[in-house]
C-alpha cells in the first residue's frame, strides 16, 4: 500500500479506537455515534483538490461559523453547570472538532490535531470508564497510536527533507510526492515489528500502572467525575417512579463470595438457595404521600459497636444489646453467622449491603502505607453506610466526597433457628417502636378500615403479618406496567383500591402501612433479591434488575422479621457460560484495575518480598516503621541526584548542543546567534537547510532592512566557522554597533529604515 494511504488509514483507525474507548463508557448517545460515523465515512473521501474537497473549501466559512457556534454553546453549557461543572458539552465539542478536522485534512498540522483530539477522547474515556470494555478500545488505541506516531513522524521527515533540504539545482532532488506514493517505505514487516512495539508499550503501561504509588492526594478539586452504570439508591423512595427496579438494567451492583453457598455441590440446590437471598440495603421508616423517607430521629440511629475478630481485625456489631441479652460473645456470634465478602461495584450511594438480618460488618484492614480506605458509619433503622476516608501520616482522617466502590465482609444471621428465640424478648424502647408505627395523618379512612378488616381475626403480630400478606397476594397482582389514577392523591390508596396491580414497592408499602395500622411496627427495606452464580469466579453477581423492596416487621420475641408480600414474579435467567466468563473478567477488572490501590500494591510488594525471602510484617501488626530521618536522607539524596543530573545536562547542552555551539566560541559566533534569535522573534527564521549566505541572500531579496549588515556578518561568520579565520575584535564591535543601532530604531549607515533584521 502507498505510504500516504497507509498513513491516512492508521490515522482513521486511531480516531476510531479513541472513540471506541469513549463508547465503552456508555456516554455517547446513539444519534451522536451515528453522526460521527456518517461524517467520518464522508471525510475519508474528502481530499484537497477533489470535488468534495473543493465543495468543503467553498463552505469553509459556514463550517468555521458552525464550529464557533458549537464552541460558544458548549462554553455556555459548562458555565451554566457551575459550581459543579458538567463536562459533557466539552466532550461533545471535542468529538465535533475531531470530525471537523477529519473533514479538513490538508496538512500534517491537521493530522496532528486529529491525534491530539483523539488523545483527549481517550482521556475522557479513562476518566469515565468503569467496565472492562474500555481495555479493548485502549489496547487497540495503544498499538495503532504506535503505528500512527511513527508514520506521522516519517511523513513529516519526508516532507521536511525532500522538499526543503534538496534545492532545485541539486542533483539529489527527490520530490516528496514520489516518496509518499512509494510502496516500499513501509510493509508488512514494519507493521509486525512496530505492532510488537505497541504490545511492549502496553506491557510497560501495565507495569507503570501497577507500580506508581496510589496516594490520592486530591490537591486540586475538579469537575465531579461522572460515574456511569450506577444504581441510584437515594434518601427517598417514590412510589411509581420505577427507578430502582428496572428489569432492563443489567448493571452489576455487587459481587459476593458466600462460602456456604460455594459449598453447595448440587447446582439446582445452589440456584434455589441463591434465588431466595435477600440483600438488605437501605431502610426507611416514614411514609408520606407515596414517598418513603428516613425520619432521621436520634432514637432510630444505627448503633455500631467495635468488637475484635478472630483474625485480629475489627468488626462493627449491630444491635449489641441483643448480644448481651443472649449472653454470647461476639466471636461466637460471628462464627455462627453467614460470612460474605462483598464487593460493591456500581452504587452512587454507599450502602453496606448484606444478606438479610445483618449482624456485623468487617472492613478488610488496609495495609500499612495505604492512604485511602473505607469505614462504616451507622445510619438509621439498622442501615449501615460505607464511608470512604483518606488517611494522613499524622493520623488525621478526612471523609472523601466520592465513593468509588469498595470491598468488605458482612456477617448475617444464619437461617437456622436462632438460639433463644421465643424465650427472651428483647424489648425495644417505646419511642423507637412509635416511629415504626407512624402513619400519615392524612391517610384515608378506608385504608384504616381495610387494615382493620384484614386483621380482624388475627390476634398475634405474626398472625396479622400472615393475614396482610395473604390478602395482598390474593387480591393484587404483580406488574411493572403501572397505571395511575391521578384523582386519588395517594398512590398507595390507588394501588389498594383501584389498580390492584403493582410491583414490589407497592406491595411492600401496602404491607408496611396496613401492618402499622394493625399495630405491628414495620420498616421499609430496599435491596436486591437473588443473584446469579458465577461458576468461574465462584461468586454471586447481583445486577440492578434484581432490585427489590420488602418489609421488616417487629414481632416481639422474634425480633425484626422479613415480610415479603410481593407475589412471585418471573426470575431473571441465570448467566450463560460466556456471560459468566465476562462477569469473572469484570470482577477481576474491578478488583485489579478500577479498585487497584495502595493496599494492593503493598500486598504485591510483600508477596514479591516473601518470594525473595525477605519476609514481611503480618497484616494488622504494627510492622516496620521507617525512621523519619531515613526518609529525609533518602529524599535528600534523590533530590541531590536530580539536581546534579539537571546541572550536568545544562552544562553539557551549553557545551555541546547545536545552539550552544554558536553561543560559545568566538565573539562572531555569539553575535551571529544573537542576530538569528532576533530575526526569528520577528518571523525571519533561518531554515534548517539554509546556509548563512543563502539566508542573508533571501532576506536581501525581500529587502528586509538591515540585510546588508547581515550579509556582511554572515560572510564573516562563515569565514570564522569554516575558514577558521580569526575575525578582529574591532570588526565584531563595529558590526555589533551597527546591529544595535538598527535594533534601537536608528537608521543604519545606508539610511535604511529601522531594521526588522536586527
Amino acid at each position, binding site marked *: 500500500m502507498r505510504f500516504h494511504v497507509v498513513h491516512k488509514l492508521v490515522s482513521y483507525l486511531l480516531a476510531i479506537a479513541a472513540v471506541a474507548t469513549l463508547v465503552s463508557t456508555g456516554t455517547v448517545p446513539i444519534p451522536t455515534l451515528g453522526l460521527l460515523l456518517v461524517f467520518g465515512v464522508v471525510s475519508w473521501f474528502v481530499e484537497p483538490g477533489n470535488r468534495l474537497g473543493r465543495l468543503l473549501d467553498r463552505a469553509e466559512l459556514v463550517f468555521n461559523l458552525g464550529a464557533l457556534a458549537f464552541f460558544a454553546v458548549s462554553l455556555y453549557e459548562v458555565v451554566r453547570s457551575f459550581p459543579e461543572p458538567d463536562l459533557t458539552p466539552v466532550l461533545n465539542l471535542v468529538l465535533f472538532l475531531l470530525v471537523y478536522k477529519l473533514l479538513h485534512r490538508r496538512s500534517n498540522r491537521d493530522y496532528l490535531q486529529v491525534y491530539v483530539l483523539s488523545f483527549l477522547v481517550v482521556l475522557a474515556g479513562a476518566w469515565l470508564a468503569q467496565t472492562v470494555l474500555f481495555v479493548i478500545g485502549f489496547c487497540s488505541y495503544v498499538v495503532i497510536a504506535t503505528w500512527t506516531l511513527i508514520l506521522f*513522524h516519517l511523513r513529516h*521527515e519526508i516532507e521536511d527533507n525532500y522538499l526543503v533540504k534538496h534545492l532545485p539545482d541539486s542533483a539529489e532532488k527527490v520530490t516528496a510526492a514520489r516518496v509518499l506514493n512509494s510502496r516500499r517505505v513501509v510493509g508488512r514487516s514494519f507493521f509486525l515489528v512496530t505492532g510488537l512495539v505497541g504490545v511492549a508499550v502496553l506491557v510497560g*503501561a501495565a507495569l507503570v500502572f501497577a507500580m506508581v504509588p496510589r496516594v490520592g492526594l486530591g490537591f486540586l478539586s475538579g469537575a465531579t467525575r461522572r460515574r456511569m452504570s450506577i444504581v441510584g439508591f437515594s434518601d427517598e423512595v417514590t412510589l411509581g417512579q420505577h427507578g430502582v427496579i428496572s428489569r432492563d438494567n443489567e448493571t452489576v451492583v455487587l459481587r459476593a463470595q458466600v462460602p456456604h453457598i460455594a459449598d453447595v455441590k448440587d447446582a439446582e440446590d445452589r440456584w434455589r438457595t441463591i434465588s431466595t437471598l435477600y440483600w438488605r440495603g437501605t431502610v426507611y421508616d416514614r411514609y408520606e404521600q407515596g414517598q418513603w423517607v428516613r425520619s432521621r430521629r436520634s432514637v432510630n440511629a444505627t448503633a455500631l459497636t467495635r468488637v475484635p475478630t478472630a483474625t485480629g481485625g475489627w468488626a462493627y456489631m449491630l444491635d449489641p444489646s441483643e448480644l448481651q441479652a443472649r449472653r454470647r460473645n461476639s466471636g461466637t456470634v460471628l462464627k455462627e453467622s453467614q460470612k460474605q465478602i462483598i464487593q460493591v461495584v456500581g452504587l452512587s450511594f454507599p450502602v453496606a449491603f448484606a444478606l438479610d438480618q445483618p449482624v456485623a460488618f468487617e472492613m478488610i484492614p488496609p495495609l500499612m502505607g495505604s492512604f485511602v480506605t473505607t469505614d462504616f458509619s451507622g445510619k438509621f433503622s439498622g442501615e449501615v453506610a460505607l464511608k470512604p476516608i483518606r488517611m494522613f501520616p499524622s493520623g488525621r482522617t478526612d471523609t472523601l466526597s466520592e465513593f468509588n466502590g469498595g470491598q468488605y465482609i458482612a456477617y448475617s444471621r444464619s437461617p437456622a433457628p436462632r438460639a433463644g428465640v421465643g424465650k427472651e424478648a428483647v424489648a425495644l424502647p417505646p419511642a423507637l417502636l412509635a416511629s415504626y408505627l407512624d402513619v400519615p395523618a392524612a391517610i384515608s379512612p378506608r385504608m384504616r378500615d381495610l387494615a382493620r378488616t384484614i386483621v380482624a381475626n388475627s390476634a398475634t403480630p405474626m398472625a396479622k403479618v400472615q393475614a396482610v400478606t395473604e390478602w395482598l397476594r390474593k387480591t393484587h397482582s404483580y406488574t411493572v406496567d403501572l397505571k395511575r389514577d391521578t384523582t386519588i392523591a395517594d398512590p398507595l390508596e390507588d394501588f389498594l383500591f383501584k389498580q390492584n396491580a403493582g410491583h414490589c414497592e407497592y406491595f411492600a408499602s401496602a404491607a408496611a402501612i396496613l401492618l402499622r395500622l394493625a399495630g405491628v411496627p414495620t420498616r421499609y427495606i430496599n435491596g436486591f433479591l437473588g443473584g446469579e452464580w458465577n461458576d468461574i469466579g465462584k461468586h454471586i453477581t447481583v445486577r440492578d434488575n434484581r432490585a427489590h423492596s420488602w418489609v421488616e416487621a417487629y414481632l416481639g420475641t422474634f425480633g425484626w422479621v422479613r415480610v415479603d408480600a410481593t407475589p412471585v414474579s418471573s426470575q431473571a435467567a441465570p448467566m450463560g457460560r460466556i456471560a459468566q466468563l465476562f462477569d469473572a473478567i469484570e470482577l477481576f477488572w474491578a478488583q485489579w484495575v478500577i479498585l487497584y490501590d495502595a493496599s494492593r500494591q503493598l500486598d504485591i510488594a510483600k508477596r514479591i518480598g516473601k518470594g525473595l525471602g525477605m519476609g514481611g510484617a503480618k497484616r494488622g501488626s504494627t510492622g516496620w516503621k521507617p525512621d523519619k530521618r531515613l526518609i529525609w536522607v533518602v529524599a535528600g539524596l534523590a533530590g541531590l541526584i536530580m539536581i546534579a543530573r539537571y546541572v550536568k545536562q545544562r552544562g553539557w547542552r551549553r557545551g555541546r548542543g547545536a545552539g550552544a555551539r554558536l553561543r560559545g566560541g568566538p565573539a562572531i559566533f555569539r553575535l551571529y546567534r544573537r542576530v538569528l534569535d532576533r530575526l526569528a522573534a520577528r518571523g525571519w527564521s533561518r531554515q534548517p537547510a539554509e546556509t548563512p549566505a543563502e539566508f542573508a541572500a533571501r532576506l536581501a531579496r525581500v529587502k528586509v532592512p538591515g540585510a546588508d549588515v547581515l550579509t556582511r556578518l554572515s560572510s564573516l561568520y562563515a569565514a570564522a566557522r569554516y575558514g577558521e579565520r580569526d575575525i578582529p575584535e574591532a570588526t565584531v564591535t563595529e558590526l555589533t554597533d551597527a546591529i544595535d543601532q538598527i535594533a534601537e530604531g536608528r537608521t543604519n549607515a545606508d539610511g535604511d529604515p529601522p531594521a526588522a533584521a536586527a
Partner: protein
Amino acid sequence: MKKRPWQRRFPPTREGWWFLATTLLVGMAAVNAGVNLLFLVFGMMLALIVASGVMSELCLRDLVVTRRPPSTVHAGAPFLMGVAVRNGKRQLPTFSLEVEDLLADRPVERRCYYLKLPAGRAQETAYKHMLGRRGRHQFTGFRISTRFPFGFIRKSREIDAPAELVVYPALIPVPESVIRAGLAELGRRQDPSRSRSGDFHGLREFRSGDDPRDIHWRTSAKRGRAFVRECEEETGMTVVVLLEGERAVPGPEGDAAFEDAVSLAASVAVALLRKGLNVGLHAADIGLPPASGGMQATQILRALALVERADAERTPAPIPPGAAIVRVTPGALLPRFEPAVRGGSVRRTA
C-alpha cells in the same frame, strides 16, 4: 578527539517537550484524582517515551559511515561530499537517519538524510558544502542522529572517521586578454625557438642557440643568411609561476593579500596549463619543475594549497633555463609576464 562510542545525546525536540509536559500533567491528574485508568494512560505515555529511546538506539546501531570526497575542492567553491551509510543489522532497517560530517569536531551545517536503510544495504547521498580556506582540513568523524520513531527526541552519537581534505586555492577568473597579452609579450621578448608547433608568425635571423630544425631554408638561401621560423602558438612554451609571498606587508591585510596572490597564482597556472604550456611553480621554498598536463595542475594546486607565507626572504630556487616568468605579487591585481632568464636564480624586481 577520540569519540566514545557509548556516549549518546538525546535532547528532546519541541514535540518531545510537549509530550513530556502532557505526560506530567496526566500523571499529576491521575495522582490527584486517584483515577486508575488515568494511571494506565500515564503508563502508556511513559512507555512510549521508553520505546522511543530503545527504537532510536536500535536505529543508530551497526551503521558504517564512509566519506566520498570529490577529487578537487577549491576554497570558496561549493562541492558535494558523498556520504555512504551501510546498515550492518541483519534484520532491522534503520529509519529516518541524519548524518552530519564533523569538521575539526564541529558538525558542518548540511546534513545527509536517509529515510530508510534496509538491513544489510548501503545508500549514498551527498551534502553540499563550501570551505573558505585553502589548506588541510581535518574531518574527524560523523555525528549520526535520528528522531525516529516518534520525533520526541533527537538521539545522536558520534563515530570516528578521520580524513584529511586538501582544499586548493580559490580559482579566480583570469581574463583571457591578460593571458594573451602576457604571452604575446613573452613571444616578442622570449626566444620562440621552442615554439615550433603553432601558427606561422614570421621570420628572423638565426641566433646562437636556436634549434637548427627551425631554419627556414628557402629564405636563408635567398638572403644568404640563416633565418628561422617564428610561431604564434604558445604550446611548448615554458613558464614558471613565481609567487612572491615575502612581499606581502605584515599583518592581517598582508595575509589577505597573500591569499589573493595564491589564488591568482593558482588561477594563472591552471589557465596556462590549459593552453598546453609547460608550467612550473616557485613559491617560498617550493620549486616545481615545469611540466604540462592535468597531473602538473594537481601538483601545482596542491603545492599552492599548502604554501605558507614566508616571513623572511628565502634563497630563490633556480629557474630553469629558457623559462619565462609569470610573477605574482601580493597586492598586485594582475600577474606580470617576464621573458626567460638564461640560467641562474630568479631576478628580484624592485
